[in-house]
């Protein structure tokens, strides 16, 4: 049997083998292509993850050191022989607040005339060799200007300090700080560097945790003590106002569109309009704010209120869309059950659908708000790029905002110093945004229900 079949089987066998080889070859090629394709996908994902890691690593690497600034330990003597100031005034019962302000103002002027710089320089000279006394101006440049105001405010707050000696860690000048951290980058004049080296050798000049970055406001004269307090408060005001303004309005309009609106051309128009509005570049909202709120309604420039109005309009579509998605996720049976036992449509929505959709709505709204407080461009157009050195007490006062502060600091002339400062500001902004996002995710995880 074998002998009989062999010759006839040989040809197809060869044929099959050749075909098999061909298939193997193409298959190998196809599999190689498959592996390459998969590797490409992995590379893309890897690139994305790498970007995230790089971004966060460099923010931390650049930003965290800004919280430790060079300080000079010194004992400051509040010398009554050189500070000729009476005790601070107290309000009388028979004067208006404005009159008391006036008297207080005059007392403060008197206080400001005391030789604060000399007192600080004297405190530093205690650490320095005697010849330093001939270079008082250079020694004074070791300290940032804000320190004299800090010492003055200490006395204004607690007048019993007069005549006492207080051990303080005085904040060093921005250039000294840069020099301490990286001697190559610094452009510290030699005359000043000499005394900085001296202080460093004696251990008086050292890095120390500084709350200036968080507690102070922005400052031009004293870069080393420039801080984020004003910007942080401004951003928090805007965040609160956006929550108060945009979330209720957004949720209300989503409820109307999803649950009550008749299906006609007009509601179609609203829907298309909201989808488009969500994709309008943020800078156009800034132009809107400039024309309507600033030029039209004469609202104050750089006020958090105006910023919040602009950001609210910008966030509204996001909140509406998120709310609609979570309303859609509630099954119709809930509504039908409510209607079936005699509830009106308003009752069905507000008593049954809305509470069930609330976690999803809040998650979407919080993510929208978090995005809004990171927005810069519209704020620049309503005057928030102005230099503001106060903490706003009301949302109508001029204020900075965190993203705008980053923008202003990155453009500062003292590049080496403000790069780190801006990175630290980014860190604060991201912590704020990420904690909002984390809260949103927690809400969703905690209360989400699958149907």
């Amino acid at each position: 049997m074998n002998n009989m079949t062999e010759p006839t089987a040989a040809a197809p066998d060869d044929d099959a083998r050749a075909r098999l080889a061909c298939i193997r070859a193409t298959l190998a090629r196809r599999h190689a292509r498959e592996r390459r394709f998969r590797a490409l996908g992995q590379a893309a994902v890897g690139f994305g993850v790498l970007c995230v890691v790089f971004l966060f690593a460099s923010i931390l690497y650049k930003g965290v050191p800004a919280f430790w600034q060079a300080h000079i330990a010194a004992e400051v003597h509040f010398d009554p022989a050189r500070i000729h100031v009476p005790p601070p005034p107290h309000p009388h019962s028979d004067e208006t607040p404005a009159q008391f302000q006036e008297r207080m103002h005059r007392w403060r002027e008197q206080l400001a005339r005391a030789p604060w710089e000399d007192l600080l320089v004297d405190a530093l000279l205690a650490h320095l060799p005697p010849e330093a006394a001939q270079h008082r101006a250079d020694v004074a440049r070791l300290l940032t200007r804000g320190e004299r105001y800090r010492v003055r405010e200490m006395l204004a707050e607690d007048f019993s300090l007069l005549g006492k000696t207080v051990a303080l860690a005085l904040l060093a000048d921005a250039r000294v700080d840069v020099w301490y951290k990286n001697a190559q980058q610094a452009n510290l004049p030699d005359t000043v560097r000499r005394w900085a080296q001296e202080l460093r050798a004696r251990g008086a000049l050292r890095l120390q945790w500084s709350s200036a970055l968080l507690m102070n406001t922005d400052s031009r004269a004293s870069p080393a003590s420039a801080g984020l307090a004003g910007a942080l408060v401004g951003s928090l005001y805007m965040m609160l106002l956006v929550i108060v303004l945009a979330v209720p309005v957004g949720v209300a309009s989503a409820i109307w569109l999803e649950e009550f609106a008749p299906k006609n051309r007009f509601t179609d128009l609203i829907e298309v309009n909201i989808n488009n509005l969500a994709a309008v570049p943020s800078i156009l909202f800034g132009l809107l704010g400039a024309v309507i709120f600033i030029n039209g309604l004469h609202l104050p420039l750089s006020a958090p209120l105006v910023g919040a109005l602009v950001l609210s309009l910008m966030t509204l579509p996001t909140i509406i869309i998120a709310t609609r998605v979570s309303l859609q996720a509630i099954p119709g049976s809930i509504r039908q059950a409510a209607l079936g036992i005699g509830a009106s449509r308003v009752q069905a929505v507000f008593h049954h659908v809305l509470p069930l959709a609330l976690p999803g709505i809040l998650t979407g709204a919080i993510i929208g708000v978090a995005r809004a407080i990171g927005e810069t461009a519209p704020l620049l157009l309503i005057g928030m790029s102005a230099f503001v050195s106060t903490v706003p007490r009301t949302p109508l006062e001029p204020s900075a905002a965190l993203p705008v502060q980053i923008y202003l600091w990155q453009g500062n002339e003292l590049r080496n110093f403000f790069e780190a400062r801006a990175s630290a500001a980014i860190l604060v902004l991201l912590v704020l945004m990420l904690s909002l996002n984390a809260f949103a995710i927690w809400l969703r995880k905690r209360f989400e229900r699958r149907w």
Partner: protein
Amino acid sequence: MNGMVTLAVLLLAMSLAYRLGRARSLRVAQAAGGVRALHSRPVHYGVLAALWCGVPALVVLLAWAVMGEHVLQSVVAAALPAGWADGMEAFEARVLLDRISAISKGEALAQEGALHALQVQGAAHMAALRQTGQLAVAAVVALLAAGGLWYAYRRIAPALRARNEVETAVRALLAGCSLIAIVTTLGIVLSLLGEAVRFFQFVAPADFFLGTVWEPNFSSADTGAQGGDYGQFGLLPLAWGTLMVSGIALVVAVPTGLMMAIYLAEYAPRGLRSVAKPVIEVLAGIPTIVYGFFALLALGPALHTAGQWLGLEVRAASALTAGVAMGVMIIPFISSLSDDILTQVPRALRDGSYGLGATQSETIVRVVLPAALPGIVGAFLLAASRAIGETMIVVLAAGNSPLLHANPLEAVSTVTLTIVNQLTGDLDFAAPQSLVAFALGLTLFVLTLALNIVALYIVRKYHEQYD
């Protein structure tokens, strides 16, 4: 302060009205045979009474809060001795009136000098007026609140359809809220259009849209007074810069984002997917100013060094730097949109392809992607619109050089960057130097709107295919 007190009293009155209305409904119900005789629940009668009591009064209160100061100022200004504002700029007169307001409230003192008497006199007048005004408003508010309450209280009867009336009010409020979105769009269009039209009175539209030179003179003060040379406002260099930067961004983002979506949707094990997806979406939540900052700080110098290795002159702030940074920003946008679209492609299409012996990548390239193409094109267009409108990255990293050239390694300027440059600082709504920002904004709006509409149309149409 006074307004706050009135508001608090009004809220108290509303809660009282609620209790009264509710109590009355229960009383009339008893006469008619118990609560079941009422058309609505007692709560609805209470809310109805509170609404009638509060809403008209609130409207008046709000009107006073918004316009009261303005009215007071114009009355006082009219009563000041004639010619007080002679030789003053309009804004100086406004500052003076604001100061008079502040003095009359005891928040400031009159300035020494020529204007002292004027300020004291105006403030005294205003303080008197304010007192009268506040009394009048309080009286009107009280009258409206009492009248509304009386009206609603009298109407309460078992047959009154209180629930329907309250719900009509609720629905009206909800519908009113959704009108805000329309009003916003209208506001954007009208404010851009209005100011752009004023710009085109200075510069001919043809010179703007077809001009190839962007060279505005710096301030209006130098040239504006003679009505002379404002400089040249040619859109094309900016449009070209925008195109270049967003083109580079899309070249970076689309392949990466798409491959990412494909890998995560089709290949990645569940564990990796559940970790990598949120990590990459973090990129979408990072503010653009941060991208701009790192583009300037890290990416620009890195590209410059890389360019030197290759013998190329790469500027640290260039179209390339801004484009790459923007690309990284858009990656998660593309990848999450494409991911949604890929997972919507029905399983049966894939199974059919596997059944014919195709490998996974062949299935993806030849079956899944073509099926998903409309959606991906939509995502691409949305990403393009976002790239065109992106501002902070280009402000920091594009270098701001409005010249027409084709070299992506050089600095460029874009539409958004120029809007920021022309409009920060002082807002002078009379000079073409700032008005041009609105013409640029209008161009940007029309462009992105067109892209969005086409993209949303494509995406929507695609959704219908498999639903």
